[in-house]
């Protein structure tokens, strides 16, 4: 049994959080960094130990019973299988590299202790999410990561926009969480348990395939996954979440938390297979999200927002894979995406700090000679994002996804995926050219201060860059035995054709982008400056106007109704006791005038009244 390393792997971050939180500012920035980074490093070592000691299959351990109310007895129980180990490795491994980089990134910022306390709590919550053997423990981790996301997006809380972004992320994901909670209620009501293994065993016995209950349960769980993973229509929070520090974006909003929805659906695969219609919906939502986000990424000027939309787009690919029943391919892409997107975000962080918090592409440019490490990170990460054939990690996972879609004969989805691959090439080239080539747009970009720390700046970037190449695809163990058979596992016809198509799409995107941005730049600028081109640019820049739509359709009517309800008559009754109390208060305050003589008079008067009352009371007279 390998309880010790697994328990240690999430206890270290918890201890880190507790030490940092209870230090109440007594620790200096250096000590905070050592504790914050060290705890995740130890967790990564514990995870490595757990991976080495894992004998295959599912190993479970129940630590204790959490709540015991009649039949409802969720436990604090862990289930360790291949999927959990892969997720743990990503969370602690990539997480450790990001924490290490954060030690460089956050130098000189106020509130480093708070930063690391939240980051460690996040790692702890995320570990609970992937390790829990029942849905309630999973939900605890699910809410925990949402809370940490809120705290870290609003890290620079003195800016009102940052606080708003944090609030928006919290509220929008909460809408999804409500669906998930309802889904859990339904599952418990119908199946009588929340234990994941039991749920997956009982569901096919009690629910017919395609029955209304199965569809509803899968739909509610999907709602939670959409909110957490920023898929249409609950995706609007992710671009705004870039208000947080860049390591936060790398860890939470690229590598781990936003992929929790993918993990959830993969974990509950049996439930979704009972609802083929919902499965189709998952695939369609993934395809729609990947296209919408890819178009939006084309028209962003902030480098972090480009990466945010590309994250949404890549998670769209994962949902797309889940939708065609290729759970292994989805998790494969989750892992490679964690590598290359963390690399891209950290490289972006290196650029942002070197250029004094300048992250507008219009004001950057010409940096490739001055920031070679960040440039290398962008090129390798970008190649993986574009799925450059054979040399990048992204190619192998994306190819697998597209192949599964083809094998499942979902031609519409396949075409969307290929189109997305072309768009990915275009926006990635635009991002790299805009940031590193051309003329510098500001003094900050003309005189950048490159990071020099080998251990906290170069090392995380280099390790992630290595993992973003084909090496990252090689070390992925494959989870074939854990999931139901995917459509492409048995057939082989057409695989070569598909690979050629996928390579063609990636290279077409790159070539098209190179032609557009290098040869026809002025023509392109002309188009986007006026007429329909400018309108399209504006539409994409605002990501198809979802924010404005939700603002008009939901937020404003809600605020209007709140304003109306503020002065309703029932409230007057509720306020009456308060008014009376306030009147009494005003009277009594007046008696407290600070003059001892008047106190004496009042006392004498009171005493006289009491004595008189005693004397005159029937039977009490002396």
């Amino acid at each position, binding site marked *: 049994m390998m309880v010790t390393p697994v328990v240690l792997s999430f206890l270290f971050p918890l201890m880190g959080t507790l030490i940092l939180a209870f230090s109440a500012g007594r620790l200096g920035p250096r000590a905070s960094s050592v504790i914050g980074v060290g705890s995740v490093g130890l967790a990564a070592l514990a995870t490595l130990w757990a991976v080495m000691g894992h004998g295959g299959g599912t190993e479970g351990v129940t630590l204790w019973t959490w709540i015991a109310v009649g039949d409802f007895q969720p436990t604090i129980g862990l289930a360790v299988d291949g999927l959990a180990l892969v997720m743990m490795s990503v969370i602690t491994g990539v997480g450790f590299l990001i924490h290490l980089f954060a030690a460089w990134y956050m130098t000189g910022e106020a509130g480093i202790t708070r930063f690391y306390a939240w980051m460690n709590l996040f790692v702890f919550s995320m570990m609970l999410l992937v390790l829990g053997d029942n849905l309630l423990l999973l939900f605890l981790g699910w809410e925990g990561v949402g809370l940490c996301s809120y705290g870290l997006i609003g890290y620079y809380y003195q800016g009102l926009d940052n606080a708003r972004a944090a609030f928006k992320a919290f509220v929008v994901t909460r809408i999804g969480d409500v669906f998930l909670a309802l889904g859990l209620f339904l599952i418990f009501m119908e199946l009588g348990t929340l234990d994941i293994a039991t749920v997956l065993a009982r569901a096919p016995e009690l629910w017919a395939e395609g029955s209304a209950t199965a569809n509803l349960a899968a739909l509610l769980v999907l709602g939670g996954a959409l909110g957490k993973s920023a898929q249409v229509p609950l995706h609007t929070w992710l671009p705004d979440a870039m208000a947080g520090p860049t390591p936060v974006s790398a860890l939470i909003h690229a590598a781990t938390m936003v992929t929790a929805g993918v993990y959830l659906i993969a974990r509950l695969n049996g439930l979704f297979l009972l609802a083929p219609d919902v499965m189709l919906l998952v695939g369609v939502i993934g395809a729609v999200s990947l296209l919408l986000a890819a178009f939006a990424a084309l028209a962003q000027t902030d480098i972090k927002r480009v990466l945010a939309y590309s994250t949404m787009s890549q998670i769209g690919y994962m949902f797309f894979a889940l939708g065609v029943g290729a759970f292994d391919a989805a998790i494969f892409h989750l892992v490679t995406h964690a590598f290359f997107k963390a690399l891209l975000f950290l490289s972006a962080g290196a650029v942002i700090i070197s250029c004094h918090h300048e992250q507008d592409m219009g004001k950057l440019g010409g940096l490739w000679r001055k920031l070679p490490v960040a440039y290398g990170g962008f090129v390798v990460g970008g190649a993986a994002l574009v799925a450059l054939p054979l040399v990048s990690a992204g190619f192998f996972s994306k190819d697998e996804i597209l192949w599964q879609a083809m094998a499942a004969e979902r031609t519409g989805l396949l075409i969307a995926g290929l189109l997305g691959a072309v768009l990915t090439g275009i926006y990635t080239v635009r991002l790299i050219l805009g940031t590193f080539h051309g003329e510098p747009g500001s003094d900050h970009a003309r005189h950048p201060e490159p990071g020099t720390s080998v251990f906290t700046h170069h090392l995380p970037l280099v390790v992630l860059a290595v993992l973003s190449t084909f090496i990252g695809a090689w070390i992925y163990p494959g989870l074939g035995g854990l999931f139901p058979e995917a459509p492409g596992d048995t057939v082989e016809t057409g695989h070569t054709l598909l690979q050629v198509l996928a390579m063609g799409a990636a290279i077409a995107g790159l070539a098209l982008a190179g032609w557009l941005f290098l040869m026809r730049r002025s023509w392109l600028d002309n188009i986007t400056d006026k007429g329909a081109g400018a309108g399209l640019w504006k539409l994409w820049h605002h990501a198809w106007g979802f924010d404005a739509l939700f603002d008009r359709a939901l937020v404003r009517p809600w605020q209007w109704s709140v304003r109306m309800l503020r002065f309703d008559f029932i409230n007057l009754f509720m306020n009456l006791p308060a008014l009376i109390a306030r009147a009494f208060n005003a009277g009594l*305050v007046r008696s*407290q005038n*600070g*003059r*001892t*003589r008047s106190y*004496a*008079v009042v006392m*004498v008067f009171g005493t006289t009244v009491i004595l008189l009352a005693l004397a005159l009371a029937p039977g009490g007279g002396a």
Partner: protein
Amino acid sequence: MNGIPMEHGLILASILFSLGLAGLMLRRSMLFVLMSLEVMLNSAALAFVVGATAWNQPDGQAMFLLVITLAAAEASVGLALMIQLYQRYRSLDLDAASRMRG
């Protein structure tokens, strides 16, 4: 001791008590307020002594000792307060120290 009737002693005590009470309520100088308090305490003590004598009970005498002790303690605290009052406000007027409101 039998020459004085109990009523006379009690009437004297009541008069002293009323004088003290009036002084407490009407005087503005803290010195006089403290003196009024002493007068009230002593009037009560006198009532104890008179009662004890009239009914030949020693309890009243014991109470008298307690009241005297209390009066001494009260005087020390009161005088310390009075010194503080004078140092802060350069006056013995109690109404000067009426900043506490509400």
